[in-house]
């Protein structure tokens, strides 16, 4: 066996460590255990959303409805928390995520609509439904749930679970089929891969992960908002690209996207800590995201 190449997420890992130390140097308080734990907790929604996006991208698609789907599951949860019970709300939210994902999957895999535009369209479906369920911001999260991530070690658990499930599933037949479908769908089909079913499953997985993202967002903010998820869409795609997963499908993985999402949150914190005026923050963030996208696209294509 020849020398093993670096893992695909090596650049992302390097960059994350670099930015972490840079942040630590500029704002020393940032790296103490308490702040680090808060940082990890606040990154969770984006991490799970990016993880969902990664599944779809690996299967050769893209999901532009994921932000709206997160919003939709979030408002479903909040409304049921207030009116019915926490357990019911949680379950309904996760089921809503699965159903939304299934709709996307069927549109892409069985109706054979282009993923880009089909999910763009379903995004408006989910966004509209979210506005129907909860027309204006409101609702409360029960205290038991709000304190879920309060212990300093607690935010680590979702990360470990996500990574564990991913590492387990990737080696199972399902993971192999996922990579095969994304790598070259035609060849996979000819070799007996149930391409359509794999695609539907990847969209459903994305919906489920988006629902978990919604849950962590609720824990973080404590209230519902019918427009909260849509702006997170670009971040989820950026995280995937930063993490080394190629948007053409078939190569990459969740590890990289988790790092990519952490990077985004670290950048945001850094911009905040550096005291950039508030009306410039959107601009600074946009600039960083665009720069990251542009260069990673460039470097990765050259390298691969």
């Amino acid at each position, binding site marked *: 066996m020849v020398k093993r190449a670096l893992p695909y997420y090596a650049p992302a890992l390097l960059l994350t460590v670099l930015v972490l130390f840079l942040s630590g140097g500029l704002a020393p308080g940032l790296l103490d255990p308490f702040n680090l734990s808060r940082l990890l907790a606040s990154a969770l929604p984006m991490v799970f959303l990016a993880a969902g996006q990664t599944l779809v991208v690996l299967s050769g698609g*893209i999901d*532009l409805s994921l932000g709206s789907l997160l919003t939709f599951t979030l408002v479903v949860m909040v409304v049921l928390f207030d009116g019915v019970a926490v357990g019911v709300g949680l379950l309904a939210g996760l089921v809503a995520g699965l159903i939304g994902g299934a709709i996307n999957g069927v*549109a892409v895999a069985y*109706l*054979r*609509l*282009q993923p*880009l*535009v*089909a999910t*763009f*369209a*379903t*995004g*408006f*479906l989910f*966004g*509209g*439904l*979210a*506005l*129907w369920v909860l*027309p204006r911001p409101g609702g409360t999260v029960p205290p038991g749930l709000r304190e879920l991530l309060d212990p300093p070690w607690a935010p680590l658990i979702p990360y470990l679970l996500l990574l564990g499930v991913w590492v387990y599933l990737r080696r199972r037949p399902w993971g192999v089929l996922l990579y095969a479908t994304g790598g070259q*769908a*035609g060849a996979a*089909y*000819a070799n007996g891969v149930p*391409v359509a079913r794999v695609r539907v499953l990847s969209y459903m997985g994305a919906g489920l992960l988006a629902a978990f993202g919604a849950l962590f967002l609720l824990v973080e903010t404590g209230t519902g908002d019918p427009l909260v998820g849509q702006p997170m*869409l*670009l971040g989820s*795609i*950026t995280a995937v*690209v930063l993490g080394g997963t190629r*948007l053409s499908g078939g190569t990459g993985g969740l590890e990289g996207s988790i790092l990519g999402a952490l990077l985004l949150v670290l950048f945001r914190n850094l911009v905040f800590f550096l005291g950039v005026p508030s*009306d*410039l*923050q*959107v*601009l*600074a*963030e*946009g*600039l960083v*995201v*665009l720069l990251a*996208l*542009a*260069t990673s*696209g*460039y470097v990765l*294509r050259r390298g691969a």
Partner: protein
Amino acid sequence: MILFLCALLLVIQGLAQPGFLTLSQVANLMKIAAVLGILAIGQTLVILSGNEGVDLSVGAVATFGAVLVYNLTRGQDDRFLLALALSLAVGFILGCLNGGLVVYSRLPPLVATLGVGTLVQGLIVWLGGRERGAVPPLLVEAVSGTWAFGLPGILFIWAVLALGVALLLHRTYYGKALYALGSNRRAAFLSGVRLERYLVLTYALSGFFSALGGVVLLGHVQLMHLTLGQAYTLPTVVAVVAGGTLLTGGVGSYWGTMAGALLITLLQSVLLTLRIEEFGRQVAFGLILLGFLAVYGREKGFR
């Protein structure tokens, strides 16, 4: 088919709201369609260029174009032309940025333009956050004032632009190159079309027309706010798709987009008349886009 749908919607509208089919009402509707139609010019070009080309920065660039005119003229007519030129130039440059990211960084157009859109939104918040300025009367007069036959100026602007775009698409080398790029990029390249140059130019033109559309929109609503054009981004895509332009590129025309813009405006008006709220309108939009995709844009199966 699309004209048939338009007629159907007109009838529904007429039934739901008696006395709707007067000249002034129809002219009003045409005005709204014209704004959308002008904003969809760039989108048509980009989608024609193929390879999942789409410009999601249209709304943000339009708003930015409007902000520039608003802040630079401060309501004075003599500065209008200069401000307009600057705004169009900035739109062109932002379009070049889109094109550069797509061509040289090889980002999917959707991601690149979404990113540029975010950046531009940042610029808008930064520059336009301090509200100071006004809409020059000249612009209002040009867009909303009556020119001839009792019709507002915006309709004539739209007609002239439509003719220009049709000439550009069907009578110039650029137009031929664009259709060639869209239908088969590799074949176009092998036939000597300079891919990179024409792709960047296409996105640049999209930025240019978006900024122009934003200025026209400013003259239409006569108010400035920081999300002036954002709501138009999705409808421009729907208008182009509904107009029969294939998302895979290479097939379609601006005439189709114009019909699509009319269709969407009518649809919105019907939904409003039927008192359907925001969520219903979003859901309806999503479903209609899916429907059109199913009719026009299905991918090939494996068998």
